[in-house]
């Protein structure tokens, strides 16, 4: 790539070079037209690949989902049997789908309520300056780095009947607590909520630590000089400044919880899932759309999942995220 670019150079040369800090001087109009054209070539050339890939693989499939969802269709040949909104009606009449909705709600609220306080506590702890802090941080992040599938298989082995958790409980005299953790229809969703919490709390910790490192040390030091205790500093100085980070995490956690698939899929027994005890919208969608080849129906579930996520995201943004997003879009800290 040669760097020489006559159109951006002032033809008069260094004599009329603009003072530092000001925009270059206005050029004759012919050059300006060429410059504008060139600018647009660059804009189009640089953004087109991203736009094409993004539109093709993110937006277009969503459009197709909407279209296919109006047909009864087994995925062979083009869809022809138009049935309007019957697929949607069918979904909301299926008790297993309603169970999946309930399970998603449990995971959304359960994740927020469990992970938030835990992550905050751990982040404040690991933000203190002490020897070995880096190592402890690394260990706390481990579950988040592991693939969902690995985590799922791992816990499946630990939670298996007569497995290590049961053995552990028995050895410390809590044998009465032993359950069919992943097979009991009433318990499995809570077991899965625990596994998901274990897996994802590290993400909240990472975000909060990143947020904490933006809190100016001077503020804490000033409060300490004024005689505030560690707790008072966290409560009245640090926490309020973490507000935006906490809200962004809540947002990401909510969207993630609505589409959770991997951990549930590999951990729960298919029979338990198909009874609705551990199904989520995403596992229900893949079970029906892909494996049972009910493409029209599966796509209707996809649209419902999308609409719920979208509405939740908009509401969240409207009421909680607005200030943070404003800061982000203008590229300035607020």
């Amino acid at each position, binding site marked *: *790539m*040669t*760097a020489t670019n006559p159109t*951006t150079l002032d033809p008069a040369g260094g004599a009329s070079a603009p003072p530092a800090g000001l925009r270059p001087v206005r050029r004759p109009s012919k050059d300006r037209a060429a410059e504008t054209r060139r600018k647009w070539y*660059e804009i189009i050339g*640089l*953004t087109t690949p*991203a736009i094409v*890939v*993004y539109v*093709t*693989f*993110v*937006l277009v*499939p*969503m459009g*197709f*989902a909407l279209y*296919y969802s109006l047909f009864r269709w087994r995925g062979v040949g083009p869809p022809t049997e138009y049935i309007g909104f019957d697929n949607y009606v069918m979904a909301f009449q299926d008790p297993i789908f309603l169970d999946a909705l309930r399970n998603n709600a449990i995971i959304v609220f359960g994740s927020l309520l469990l992970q938030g306080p835990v992550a905050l506590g*751990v982040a404040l*702890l690991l933000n203190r*300056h*002490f020897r070995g802090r880096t190592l*402890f941080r690394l*260990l*706390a*992040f*481990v579950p988040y*780095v*592991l*693939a*969902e599938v*690995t985590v799922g*298989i*791992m816990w499946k*082995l*630990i939670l298996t009947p*007569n*497995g*290590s958790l049961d053995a*552990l409980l028995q050895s410390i005299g809590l044998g009465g607590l032993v359950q069919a953790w992943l097979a009991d229809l009433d318990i499995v969703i809570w077991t899965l909520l625990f596994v998901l919490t274990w897996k994802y709390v590290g993400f909240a910790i990472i*975000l909060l630590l*990143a*947020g904490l490192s*933006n809190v100016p040390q001077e503020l804490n030091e000033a409060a300490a000089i004024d005689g505030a205790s560690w707790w008072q500093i966290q409560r009245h100085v640090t926490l309020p400044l973490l507000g*935006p980070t906490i809200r*962004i995490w809540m947002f990401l956690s909510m969207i993630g919880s*609505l*589409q959770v*698939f991997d951990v549930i899929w590999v951990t729960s027994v298919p029979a338990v899932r198909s009874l609705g005890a551990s199904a989520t919208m995403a596992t229900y*969608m893949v079970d029906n759309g*892909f494996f049972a080849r009910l493409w029209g129906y*599966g796509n209707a579930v*996809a649209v419902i999942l999308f609409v719920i996520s*979208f509405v939740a995201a*908009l509401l969240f943004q409207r009421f909680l995220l607005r200030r943070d997003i404003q800061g*982000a*879009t203008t*590229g300035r*800290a607020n």
Partner: protein
Amino acid sequence: MTANATLSPSRRRRPVSWGNPLTYGLALAVAAVSIVPVLYVIIGGFRTTPQIVANPAGLPDPWVFDNYARVLTQSGFWTQAFNSAVIALGTTLGVVLLGVCAAFVLARYTFRGREVLYTFFTLGLLFPAGAAILPLYLMLRDMNLINSYFAVMLPQIAFALPLTIVILRPFLSAIPRELEDAAAIDGTGRLGFLWRIMLPLSRPALVTVGILAFVASWNAFLLPLLVLGDASLHTLPLGVQNFSSQYTSDTAGILAFTSLAMLPALLFFTFAEKQIVGGLQGAVKG
């Protein structure tokens, strides 16, 4: 990493001291909860299945290396690791390349419709990737891409772009205007400026988005599950799942396979942890 340190003045070096016992107690508890299940799996791989059945929570006695040897020599582990690496590297390259070009335009050019274009990309953050998976499968089938690396890489690049652009744009915007003017006076065009000045200066942010894309791709399960039916193309997460459902009675083998599958991610993360936390600072600034 050094560039990153200079960009965040609040992370000045402070004297590190020994914390109090309570701090260590709590930190140890956190570390134990995180790491004990993982250790259980890794150590379990050194036992035999009868050992595990007899005493599920015990230590290996004696230690056996056969499970790990078996997985490494017989199970397709290396093929799957290779496939995962190709797909994750391809995805990362695509995300960084397309992302930095688009973010550069959104950060450094003034033109009509710029904010519309930015909003258009950020909308992608609201799209649950999982919801598009069925039509995505059908589309890839029509494009004859099923059972190819591209069937995984292209959608992964597309879905990683919104976050990449959101992280990169403020970073690229923050690079002083004066540098661009100085480059122009020296006869460097905007593209030369992108290549010679922006890219080196924004390396920390590029590494962060690269790591995020790489880890997401390395761990991905649903998309590969649907579009990679051909076993020779399977990635590690698919391999773990297959192995565990194929050899249900071989608990020790599953533990060994699962341990080996998590090893690359753990090593990689150990080296990249500072970078991830550092790079996210800009994105979550209050």
